């Protein structure tokens, strides 16, 4: 069974995000004065062929911890659903 996977890679809380803070600092110059807490991450999409959702999730999470994230500074949120479902 094919599952569509979406991984959001985020900097862990407490890890400095100079990119996010630079974007945040630029916002008032465009007139957006109420925006705060900007964090920049990565979005990675792929498909996994697995027996069921549990197996697919376990493989995706393994992939995240061993390759897609550096656990020292990043963590990941994994979303998945059977492929072909409109999202």
């Amino acid at each position, binding site marked *: 069974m094919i599952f569509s996977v979406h991984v959001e890679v985020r*900097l862990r809380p407490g*890890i*400095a*995000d*100079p*990119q996010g*803070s*630079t974007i945040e600092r630029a916002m008032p110059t465009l007139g957006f004065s109420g925006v705060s807490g900007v964090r920049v991450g990565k979005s990675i999409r792929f498909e996994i062929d697995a027996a069921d959702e549990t197996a697919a999730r376990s493989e995706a999470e393994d992939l995240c911890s061993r*390759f*897609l994230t*550096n656990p*020292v*500074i990043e963590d990941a949120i994994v979303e998945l659903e059977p492929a072909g479902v409109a999202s």
Partner: protein
Amino acid sequence: MSLRVGVVVFPGSNCEQDMLEAMRLVGGEPELLWHGDATVNAVDAVIVPGGFAHGDYLRPGAIARFSPVMSAVAEFAAAGGPVVGICNGFQVLTEAGLLPGALQKNAGLKFVCAPAQLRVETTNSVLTRSADKGAVLNIPINHFEGNYTCDAETLAQLRDEDRVVLRYVVNPNGSVDDIAGVCNEGRNVVGLMPHPERSTSELLGSTDGLPLLRSLLSL
């Protein structure tokens, strides 16, 4: 007999020629090691030089650690062989798990290319054994992701075990505890952000890289 030094080349490495030149200058016999070959060719020491291995895609070093040569480098390191990672090479060694911690983006979001003052914190490492403890070396840095970080426990361990090899006199990038370079438990694997191969001649503004490069050859 001069020692053979293998300089690893990934697609996107760009400091390997400078390193060959620098190693010849200090009397080593350098050769290139291609990332796709799963061997270190029986050299006496390995250097992972700077650049942008595999384009730094995903994260610096994230893809390089899967190159076939890296399993040979890991084996060489485990057997006590001297391994030094410089700049992108440091990032590769942390991603490969040969050194603790990680290099995050510089505080201030600036790519920093400037001379840096480094203090030699220990002479108990393959990169500093011919240097003087407490000496301040003038060696350039050239990086965007050189902000060293690790968890509190790892930091305490690095300090307790005297594994912070070099510290910045003035912190240029936000690195925790001013760390510029660290070593592994065996003290035979060292990673540093500054470029000693670029401080090998008065014409380049400094010769302070020489004692570090000589250390690697003083087995």
